[in-house]
């Protein structure tokens, strides 16, 4: 049996990143214990289209009153979910959540003074196609202030939760928008060590997928861990 490629822990953020203050008391201090993936990591839940409703991938309408729609710049976000070898990951469940166009989340613990939009909830979900592709509709979220430093603001972003074919591929990340000057100022973006890692989370404006007179488009590809394929196995296989 072939396992999943080890995570590159220099590319991924450290647990302890003092500029992001919440990490101070929530970061394990001991070294992670490493072991090659086993069947427990190489399997994972499978989701079917039966869980999806017709508006799940349309955040403009999935919380709106009949005939109404959410306020804000209308966008389509599309891309592919691939593994590290460039192979598409089909049937991946992706869940997204975001603030409204004013930067306000619909949540009881949220206290930002920007108003709620009665027609915007802020969550959506979809499954990738056979070629790993996906697409959803939403409004561009606004930047918002958050308690960290005395004047920290999140760049506009959409949160993504992704299930691949195995629990080893489980990932939560955030998508940013090309050209946003807030990106380099953000301590959460700043947990990434490499400039290339930040770029990997910035969606490109994609005029080819824009729907004229309706919505602009952004392209955001997601890469999950790859499964090794080798002709050479030098150990007896148990499973």
């Amino acid at each position, binding site marked *: 049996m072939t396992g999943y490629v080890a995570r590159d822990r220099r590319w991924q953020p450290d647990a302890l990143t003092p500029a992001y203050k919440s990490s101070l008391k929530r970061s394990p201090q001991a070294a992670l214990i490493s072991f*090659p993936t*086993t069947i427990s990591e190489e399997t994972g*839940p499978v989701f079917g289209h039966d869980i999806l409703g017709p508006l799940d991938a349309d955040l403009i309408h999935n919380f709106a009153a009949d005939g109404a729609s959410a306020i804000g710049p209308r966008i389509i976000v599309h891309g592919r979910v691939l593994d590290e070898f460039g192979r598409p990951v089909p049937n991946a469940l992706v869940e997204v959540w975001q603030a409204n166009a004013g930067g306000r989340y619909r949540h009881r613990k949220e206290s930002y003074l920007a108003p709620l939009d009665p027609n915007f909830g802020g969550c959506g979900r979809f499954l990738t196609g056979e070629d790993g592709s996906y697409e959803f509709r939403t409004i561009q979220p606004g930047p918002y202030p958050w308690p960290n430093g005395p004047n920290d603001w999140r760049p506009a972003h959409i949160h993504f939760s992704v299930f691949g074919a195995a629990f080893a591929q489980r990932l939560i*990340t955030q998508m940013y928008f090309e050209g946003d000057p807030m990106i380099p100022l953000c301590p959460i973006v700043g947990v990434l060590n490499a400039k290339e890692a930040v770029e990997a989370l910035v969606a490109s404006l994609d005029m080819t997928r824009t729907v004229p007179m309706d919505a602009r488009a952004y392209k955001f590809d997601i890469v999950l861990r790859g499964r090794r394929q080798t002709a050479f196995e030098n150990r007896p296989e148990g499973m």
Partner: protein
Amino acid sequence: MAQKLTHLRESPSQTAGPYVHIGCTPNFAELNGVYPQDLGNVMKTGVVQGREITVTGTVFDGTGTPLRDAMIEIWQADAAGVYPGQAGCDPNFTGWGRSAGDMETGEFRFETVKPGQVGFRDGRMQAPHVTFWIVARGINIGLHTRMYFEDEAKANAIDPILSRIEHQVRVPTLLAKAQSDGHYRFDIHLQGPQETIFFDS
């Protein structure tokens, strides 16, 4: 200089943030009417095989304060040691659970079955275990751990992963304790003297 590798790099992780419940358990977050129910809150979809158990626990930060904004997911084999999706699995068991924790206390709760043993890469058997994955504000990349069972001492002693842990004194951080018949407690400490073992696999 050398040839460039054409592999892609895994997308970098970013924290799930304080509002992960909006996206993953919206009904829990009082965002009703978008999805009929939150995924992962039912693991038994009918009559299941094996011993039914309840697992509860709390995730604590380095000051001993419970996390109330975490999301905890579990993944496990069925009672016979078969993962859902594989041939012969229990058709009424999903193997996957997701909990937002209690709104006030942060305590998570899973109604599940005691997993059977599954194989290791070399053919040895692993002790019964449940994979845990924890995300929250302040956690930059999801934390992976495993819950084993304190009352499986024999299997635990020869488990290929538990037995290779250098600091054996930390192994009890991975053991669920039986509270009463069918109820196990598994607290997770992100930091401090009782820090749970986390894995990189």
